[in-house]
């Protein structure tokens, strides 16, 4: 059993351990222990990978190949294998996932309701995510992909807030519909290569050695890209994201926006672009346009949101648009930027959702206008929130800037197959998002944390008691999103919680946010490490494009 298998097995074993733990109080410790091990394991793999492939970068680096491959037959007659491997792109994603799940467990420290199921599902989800990032057999990939997506339904449905069933169902169905397209694409890849060469195999590396007919690529590429795009929140298939995130509990939002949405970008890059370069060339401009809409649309959409989670969800739509935009540029900088942005957005949005959870746990509201001046009472959270916000608007020093500058550079440099006027125009349009992002981030955070704390009316206390127990009503407001149905709340005081008396972060919360911020800053300040990691693994993709 190779070390990569352990990366998949450890979360699964943790799931089993969580289920077997007799005392519900200990479950979170078990989960933390398991994810801690996973974190260490990731570090070991990273070092091993670095030792194997980090020595030199560029086209001839070892990292252009898969490392630490584990490969054996599964369904032999169909060419289905258990095939794990890792390259720079996978490595960065694995690192992201380990960090997010570890902090996710920390952020779920206070889950009291059905703890066992919660952590078990969370860990099943993560098992799937690790599996996806490490699989190089499409069948295995797809298996893990759906394992990663489905637990979301219950996680949102049981522990969510607001119209949780609706959101959970919408999210699940949209993602599954996306994976339906992916499935068709995979089978087309498998059979086209098989019928032509006589060797049927789901092995990604074998498929990559095959030149698919151009007309076949032309219809398969958009299917796979869009299929993954749904998970990457591509316009107009992004609407699961706001509702889903708004309804989900903290750790789930973190994992979902932080890691799961990355599966979309990862798949689009690793499979759609890698295997179908001609299709990519044919469709890239179209998808660049679509993702430009994503970027701006998400940003403008976020301006008008009243619920912090909707706010972040729309911002995620915008940022994930950057990922797909980067992929659609089809050049080194764009692709690298896309991977960087996946990492960066993963950490950043994880931080965002963790913080929202922390604030919500105190104020019992997520409605932005209901809050104000919280920096006074929870300075730590405010600072973290602002760091997340600044990272989100692409402030240098945080990873988002590195990623976005790559993507915009990539977009502006364009590629050999598309009109440079078009790509440049789209890039400039997309770059406009940095202003809009600044607008919504500062407006949103400003309202919540700065200014005076709204007056606390004793009167509103009583009428809020009723809704206090079931937090359902807050989310219901979220569902209305932009309509501004918050008249009732608009005035003052968040549901009878005296904002002036709230407390700052606890130790676990500080730890959670601290880890995430450290990641953001490390990559932002020393991007070269990540870049070396990723760059070599982009070459195989680029080589197939040329």
């Amino acid at each position, binding site marked *: 059993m190779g070390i990569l298998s352990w990366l998949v097995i450890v979360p699964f074993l943790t799931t089993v351990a969580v289920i077997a733990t007799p005392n519900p109080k200990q479950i979170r410790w078990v989960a933390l222990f398991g994810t801690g091990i996973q974190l260490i394991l990731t570090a070991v793999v990273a070092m091993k990978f670095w030792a194997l492939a980090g020595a030199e970068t*560029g086209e001839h680096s070892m990292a252009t190949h898969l490392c630490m491959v584990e490969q054996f037959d599964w369904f032999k007659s169909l060419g289905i294998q258990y095939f794990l491997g890792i390259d720079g792109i996978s490595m960065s994603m694995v690192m992201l996932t380990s960090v997010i799940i570890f902090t996710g467990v920390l952020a779920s420290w206070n889950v009291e309701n059905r703890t066992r199921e919660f952590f078990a599902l969370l860990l099943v989800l993560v098992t799937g995510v690790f599996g996806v990032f490490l699989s190089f057999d499409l069948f295995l990939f797809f298996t893990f992909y759906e394992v990663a997506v489905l637990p979301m339904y219950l996680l949102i449905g049981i522990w969510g807030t607001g119209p949780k069933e609706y959101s959970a169902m*919408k999210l699940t*169905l*949209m993602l599954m519909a996306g994976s339906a397209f992916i499935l068709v694409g995979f089978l087309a890849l498998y059979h086209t290569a098989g019928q032509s060469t006589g060797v049927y195999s789901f092995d990604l590396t074998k498929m990559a050695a095959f030149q698919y007919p151009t007309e076949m690529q032309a219809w398969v590429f958009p299917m796979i890209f869009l299929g993954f795009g749904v998970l990457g929140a591509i*316009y*107009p298939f*992004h*609407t*699961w994201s*706001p*509702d889903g995130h708004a309804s989900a509990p903290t750790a789930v939002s973190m994992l979902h926006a932080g890691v799961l949405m990355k599966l979309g970008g990862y798949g689009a890059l690793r499979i759609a672009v890698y295997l179908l370069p001609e299709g990519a060339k044919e469709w890239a401009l179209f998808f660049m346009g679509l993702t430009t809409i994503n970027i701006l*649309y998400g940003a*403008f*959409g976020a*301006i*008008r*949101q009243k619920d912090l989670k909707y706010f972040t969800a729309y911002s995620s739509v915008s940022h994930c648009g950057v990922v797909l935009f980067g992929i659609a540029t089809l050049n*080194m*900088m764009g692709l*690298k930027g896309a991977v960087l942005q996946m990492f960066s957005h993963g950490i950043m949005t994880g931080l965002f959702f963790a913080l929202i959870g922390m604030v919500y746990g105190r104020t019992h509201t997520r409605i932005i206008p209901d809050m104000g*001046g919280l920096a*006074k009472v929870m300075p730590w959270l405010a600072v973290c929130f602002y760091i997340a916000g*600044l990272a989100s*608007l*692409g*402030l*240098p*020093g945080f990873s988002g*800037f*590195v990623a976005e*500058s*790559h993507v*915009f*550079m990539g977009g*502006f*440099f364009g590629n050999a197959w598309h009109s440079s006027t078009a790509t440049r125009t789209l*890039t*400039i349009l997309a*770059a*406009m998002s*940095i*202003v809009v992002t*600044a*607008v919504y981030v*500062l*407006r949103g955070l*400003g309202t919540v*944390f*700065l*200014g*005076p*704390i709204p007056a606390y009316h004793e009167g509103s206390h009583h009428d809020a008691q009723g809704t206090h127990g079931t937090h359902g009503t807050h989310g219901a407001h979220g569902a*209305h*999103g*932009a*309509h501004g149905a918050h008249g009732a709340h608009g005035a003052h005081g968040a549901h009878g919680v005296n904002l002036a008396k709230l407390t700052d972060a606890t130790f676990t919360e500080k730890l959670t946010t601290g880890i995430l911020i450290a990641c953001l800053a490390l990559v932002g300040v020393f*991007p*070269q490490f990540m*870049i070396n990691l990723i*760059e070599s693994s982009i070459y195989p993709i680029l080589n197939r494009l040329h």
Partner: protein
Amino acid sequence: MSIIENPWIIPALPLFSFLIVGLFIRPVSGKLAGIFGTLSIFCAMVAAYTLAWQYFSLDHHGGGARSALLPFSFEWLRFMKGMTVNFGVMVDSISVMMLTVVTTVSFLVHLYSTSYMHGEDGYGRYFTYLSLFTFSMLGLVVAPNIFQMYVFWELVGVSSFLLIGFYYQKPAAVSASKKAFIVTRFADLGFLIGILVLAYFGYQVQLGGVGVNAGQAVDFTFLSNPEVLTKLNEMGVLTLALILVYAGAAGKSAMFPLHIWLPDAMEGPTPVSALIHAATMVVAGVYLVARLFPAFSAAPNALEVVAVVGLFTSAFAAIIACTQDDIKRVLAFSTLSQLGYMMFSLGIATMEEPLGYTAAMFHLYTHAFFKALLFLGAGAVIHSVHTNDVWKMGGLKSKMPITHFTFLIAVLAIAGIWPLAGFFSKDEILSAALESHRYFHFYGGLVIAGLTAFYMARIYFLTFWGKARSDNASHAHEASAVILIPLVILSVLSCTTGWIPFAHFVAIGRELPHTGINMAVAIPGTLVAVIGLLASFFLYRTGDAKTVDGLVSGFGGLYRVIKKKFYFDEIYLFVTHKIIFRFVATPVAWFDRNVVDGGVNLSGWTTRKAGYFLTLMQTGQLQTYGVWFVLGAVVVSTLFWMTVN
């Protein structure tokens, strides 16, 4: 350790201070934070002066620019092969000049703040921010490439944002900080696109084999290379790129029409206004244009934009400054006006007539000191009378004598009275205009100089002369020694810096003939300044509002328009809230929830409806089932037959 070989130490000190203070000291003790921050910036200042000494002692073969050194550089970001961003410290005359200015003002402001901010909530936080700002500003100044410039550009922007919004519980401060950040961010978009353009075409130029040895496509050395510039011009992109970059500069230096954030930025603590919004950060735009001056000079149209916008802003701001009552706002508009001055000075310079360049840098240098002095002085006053409104002051001359004296020096300096610093630098700008035969700019500059003298004197008289016009003003008292020391130091600097033979240190292009004071300029310059001062003296000496009422009503509507700053804030508010928010953001949000999401829900609805329709076919009638069965069999048989035939 030779500083010139390790100049990174200068920005590293405040960074160190930022991290240490921010992470460890601030939570423990605010006071210690102040002391630590001040000390570290003091060290940085010492290092900066050492560097200046060492740099300017290097051999200089006379004429034009001194050679730039790059003693420290490392690869920070590799976009791709042949497209790398290095971080480093570039040592040349203007960066050294800026280093000294920034560290000096920053140190003095730190010192000043230890007393000024005493007892404020978030004392430690304040010094954390200050350190961050200083670090960012120093990083900006030493940037050897446009990308590093952009990185630190954003960082100073965010420090500025943090400091303006320091009093975060004050809604006005919050919205001012937001406004400052967003407006400059908007300008930075242009900057960013400009960088993209330069990077892309620079890369193409390098692929074409030109300027391969001049560094990376984003390096300033590359962008100063004449061959490269010619090539870029041939591609027809240089002007466009530079105008885009200038947009960024204009945002940071608050050029019209992006000036609106600066007056509002005065909501921050006054020392911050002195440091960021007067002496250092706002001149970053000027600095950027100066940095790229070789490129600009290759694109005369872009330079012309700089010149025109600069002059217009200068005049525009000066006119508004005459009507404002908030002392800090007047200073802010005055800053605007002076920045415009520097900009147009750069704009009228060329490689052949480079006096404007030197003059702009000179004015930047001197302005930093006397404007910081003005702000700090104003701060001392405000600290004492707890108001910004000049009409609520008055009679402070006797109560705050040292403050009064230093403030007077600063007013005279900015008005351009010999032998104070402002006189020399302003004189140089005007003579540059004259020598370049830019008479419009010359006369414009003269008028602005007069206006400057007028409004500066106006606030001076209203603040210090006449009788106290409020309770606080009558109980005002002199500030503490820690506050006064920086004032005194700055007033000394305001007096002396004019005498520096600036062209010896900072120059570009053709060697300048050593010129003394150009009497053709000095005389009219001094004349308008005196006229301005006198006019002010007659109008505001008593601080009696009635004296000016007549004048004000004489101007009537025009006065109101000016006082309202030409309604620019309102226009912006209209555009952002009423147009962008209402007609873009709201519809987008609506569209998303109703059309796009509606589409998703529609598909669900359709599914259910189709299901419902199909359910109806399951009538429960056995014989209906039978009919389906029989027809099904018939159809399937037919289909079998049809597919084969």
